């Protein structure tokens, strides 16, 4: 629910290599500090962590709704057939939520491909390790080059790739609706 920039700025403090929260925790349990967003090895992982936390609330609600929609009889039947807890998860829960899992994956891909704010704020637009398409578009159009044509061309390429995923998404949801 928080504005995205709030999340990103907050995590910027956590990642502070000096006395950020994460390094304090690491040293507290006797591990060496990490450079987080400032090291090429961990920069990308750090960005993924932020984005994951930012979307945690919304996705949890959607998955919860999907889990609650599973008819209880299926578990009961599986148990009568002698299925263990893990087998019930594997053969009832996962197949029953497959549609939601797939849809969320597709939506995630579509939105993550357009990510801008995390790399912009945390690692900067010139960092070669965390360049995203939108960072590149921004750089070409609004910083040094002011090459709107090239930036727009990149957006079109991004659109074509996203359209592919949108098409899959539409197909999946249509099939579900007609079934």
């Amino acid at each position, binding site marked *: 629910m928080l504005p995205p920039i*709030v999340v990103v700025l907050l995590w910027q403090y956590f990642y502070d290599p000096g006395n950020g929260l994460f390094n304090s925790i690491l040293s507290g349990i006797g591990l060496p500090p990490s450079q987080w967003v400032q090291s090429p090895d961990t920069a990308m992982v750090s960005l993924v962590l932020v984005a994951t*936390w930012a979307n945690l609330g919304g996705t949890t609600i959607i998955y919860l709704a999907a889990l609650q929609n599973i008819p209880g009889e299926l578990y009961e039947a599986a148990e009568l057939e002698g299925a263990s807890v893990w087998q019930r998860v594997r053969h009832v829960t996962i197949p029953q939520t497959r549609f939601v899992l797939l849809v969320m994956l597709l*939506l995630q891909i579509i939105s993550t491909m357009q990510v801008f704010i995390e790399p912009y704020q945390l690692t900067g637009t010139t960092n070669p390790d965390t360049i995203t398409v939108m960072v590149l578009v921004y750089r070409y159009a609004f910083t040094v080059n002011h090459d709107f044509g090239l930036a727009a061309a990149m957006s079109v390429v991004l659109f074509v790739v996203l359209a592919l995923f949108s098409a899959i998404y539409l197909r999946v949801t249509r099939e579900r609706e007609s079934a």
Partner: protein
Amino acid sequence: MTRTLISETVLRRRRGRLLHLTAVAVTVVVFAFVFLFPLYWMVTGAVKDPDELARATPTLIPETWNLDSFATAWTQLQIGKYFLNTAFYAVGGWFIQIAVDVCAAYALSRLRPWGGRVVLGAMLASLMLPATALLIPAYMTVADVPLFGVNLLNTPWALWLPAAANAFNIYLLKRFFDQIPGELLDAASIDGAGRLRILWSVVLPLSRPVLSVVSIFAVIGMWKDFLWPFLVLQDPDTQTLSVALSRLANTSYITDSEMFAGLVIASVPMVVIFLALQRQILAGLSAGGVKG
């Protein structure tokens, strides 16, 4: 209670109940921690004084409850001004979005002008376009509006006009208007109501649920948006809270506790809206959420 993964007979047994309770408790605690601890850190960061924040080993519970950082952030760093800017953009954007989208949806649903189907098709097709793909063309349009030749950069219109053309809202409203029984509208028109009067006195009062969902998401969207306001509001005086916070974070004018205070101030309206309107938001999420 409905049957879930674990059966009640297992839960009635001692060992089963204990295992189940442990698993539930661990999940709840871990999730609550992951969700809430960063928020706790943000709020306590704002009340700690600068020395305490700068320490190598952070304090879990603040030693001081210093509310000055909120006051300095609000007045000296002009967070207050940015807050009011954002509120103004959000309310204005909401009003224009509702006015334009309701009229468009009403026209497409009830007035059925010539070529309306083509317009609707074009709008639905534009839903396929992610906002980011339109970024550059939209920016160039706002910087030099075709035919009018005006520059809207650094004005509220740069936010409001692109937001008003919201194909998804128009489609949502149109579908809702389609379901209103025609007899009601016919009855009103026999009683002498004009088309605008029908919209105002019959259609709108019946559409309260969908209007509230559209309104909530319009305000939240305006408040949270970053990339677009960041591009079109370069002048610091006109910036939204999000853009201003990002700009301040990259300068050294702001102390850490003031920054935390700014983050809290930016979050409070969203948290309040969420707590107050939880039901509508969750309904909207599950209706539109899987749509994205």
